């Protein structure tokens, strides 16, 4: 199987039934506790969603470094900016629809323009939030954050990557945003899987000599992309799948090399097809190496209530949609 061994992924990655599933937000809780142990300046602020965002895990470990702000996301963003300017490393936790949704201007002025060392944790991003419906399914959060100078943007593929991102951004200065999608996401990486800010990791390397299409994905769609790659390879196409959890900074070097090698690119994310990872890659390749880029994402509509799995199918965010996108990208090369 053409899984990149250096990525140290789990076994049975193509068999969903055998994979453990864990909420990616657990990675925030675990990462915050680990970062908090390393640096006494790490603090966590939460807007009345401590259980749901897993801020509670930090609160239990460090009750004196947990700050409850109530349902007040605008205050939370600027409060954290003030704490950062006084030397703390604040993580602010809420649902992505409210933070960075509701408090976008406060983030822009008091965090990004101010270059304050605040880390924004946006939970419940994507349609896989499920029954809560469109109001709670953030689909534009990466677009909002990606266009702010100084801001870094991350979308982890599973719980372990989320934990690594939290620990990594706690150690570097500057504003950062991380979104976590879906209640339970298949765990595909391990503690040994490499992670570095601004680096796309190769998870699936083509078994074939020739690579026909390169897939860049983030969040739960990384696993769907691997499932898609297995189908595509069976049908005779050479495929590479990259985990591009670092949406900004984008790993431009890897994107360019992959686009040159494959000549066609697919992006996949649980976000509007506009403005997120797909937008970033299309912008970059348009200016540097124009090749067909097909974006798998939500097509300019809001989410709705339903079970997570049926919504992922209904919104075109599963392996078969990535397969179709890949075929179209290859077709466009001709």
């Amino acid at each position: 199987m053409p899984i990149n061994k250096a990525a140290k992924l789990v076994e049975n990655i193509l068999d969903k039934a055998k994979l453990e599933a864990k909420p990616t937000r657990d990675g925030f809780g675990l990462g915050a506790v680990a970062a908090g142990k390393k640096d006494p300046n790490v603090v966590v602020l939460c807007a009345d969603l401590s259980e749901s965002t897993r801020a509670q895990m930090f609160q239990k470990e460090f009750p004196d470094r947990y700050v409850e702000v109530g349902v007040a996301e605008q205050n939370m963003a600027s409060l954290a900016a003030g704490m950062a300017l006084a030397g703390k490393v604040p993580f602010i936790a809420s649902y992505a629809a409210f933070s960075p949704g509701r408090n976008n201007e406060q983030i822009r002025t008091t965090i990004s323009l101010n270059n304050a060392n605040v880390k924004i944790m946006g939970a419940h991003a994507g349609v896989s939030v499920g029954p809560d419906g469109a109001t709670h399914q953030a689909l534009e959060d990466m677009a909002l954050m990606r266009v702010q100078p100084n801001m870094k943007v991350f979308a982890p593929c599973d719980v372990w990557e989320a934990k690594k991102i939290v620990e990594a951004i706690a150690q570097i200065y500057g504003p950062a945003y991380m979104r976590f999608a879906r209640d339970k996401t298949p765990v595909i990486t391990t503690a040994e899987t490499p992670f570095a800010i601004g680096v796309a990791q190769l998870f699936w390397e083509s078994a074939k000599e020739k690579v026909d299409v390169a897939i860049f994905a983030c969040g739960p769609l990384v696993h769907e992309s691997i499932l898609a790659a297995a189908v595509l390879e069976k049908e005779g196409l050479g495929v590479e799948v990259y985990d591009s959890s670092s949406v900004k900074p984008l790993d431009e070097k890897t994107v360019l090399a992959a686009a040159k090698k494959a000549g066609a690119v697919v992006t996949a994310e649980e976000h509007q097809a506009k403005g997120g990872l797909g937008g970033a890659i299309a912008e970059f390749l348009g200016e540097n190496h124009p090749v067909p880029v097909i974006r798998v994402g939500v097509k300019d509509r809001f989410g709705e209530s339903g079970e997570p799995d049926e919504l992922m199918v209904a919104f075109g965010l599963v392996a078969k949609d990535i397969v179709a996108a890949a075929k179209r990208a290859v077709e466009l090369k001709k």
Partner: protein
Amino acid sequence: MQFPKKEHYSVDELYKMANEMRVDLIKMLTKAGSGHSASPLGTMEIWTAFYFHILNHNPKKPDWEERDRLLLSCGHYCPVRYTVMAHAGYFPHEELWTLRKYGTRLQGHPERERLPGVETTSGPLGSGLSQAAGMAKVAKMDGKKWWTYVLMSDGEQQTGQIWEAAMFAGNNKLGNLIGILDRNNIQINGFTEDVMPLEPLMQKYEAFGWHVQDIDGHNIEELIDAVNKAKAVFNKPSLILAHTIPGRGVEFMERKYEWHGKPPNPKEALEAIREIRTLGGRIRSEHE
């Protein structure tokens, strides 16, 4: 010019310095050709009292950790802050004439990354109290002795965020946080009580768990006294409601909301400076 470094200025000296700085404020606004006149003129005594009496600070070390923090929530007041900072020695006096020009550190609304000493970036109204509360919270968590002050406008009391922050500060008993509310009754579209009434402001803050005093914002002794009283209140954040006259010192600007967001033209500037230097014609100016 920079005022001589002194341990203590007398109140009379502070008033003279405030008036002197009003002249520079008028000059810089006129040279900039845009910017806000009324509220900066109206809060000159407050800024003078802070930088030359109240604050524990070091203009040569703006990031000194033990300094008191003074935040400006309503960023459009920045010309008065810049004027007073220059006279306190934060940056060369001639830099005042670069206000709002391309490449300047004195941006139209203040930016922390460009000008050390302004503490934070502000302009969009209503976020200063939150940031000040964040700083005060850190000082309280870590047992630090410095004070956090924040100057707010009355217009921005219309934003929801102010009340989110007021609730937080009250709940967290931030006794090391002191807010100064410049109650000058004007905003861009008119008088506050016509645009969107704010009263009763004192009772509102009290209901949010604050200790509240109201003072004549042009009376430096009253302000210093109120700050000392506020410092003595241990378990509540303090609000000093400072009643000021917008455009103070220049009669044709006083109490007129039309002067909220524009600078004087060169002719108006001459008239304004003459008035400031003669204290409204009560004394002869040495410059005449």
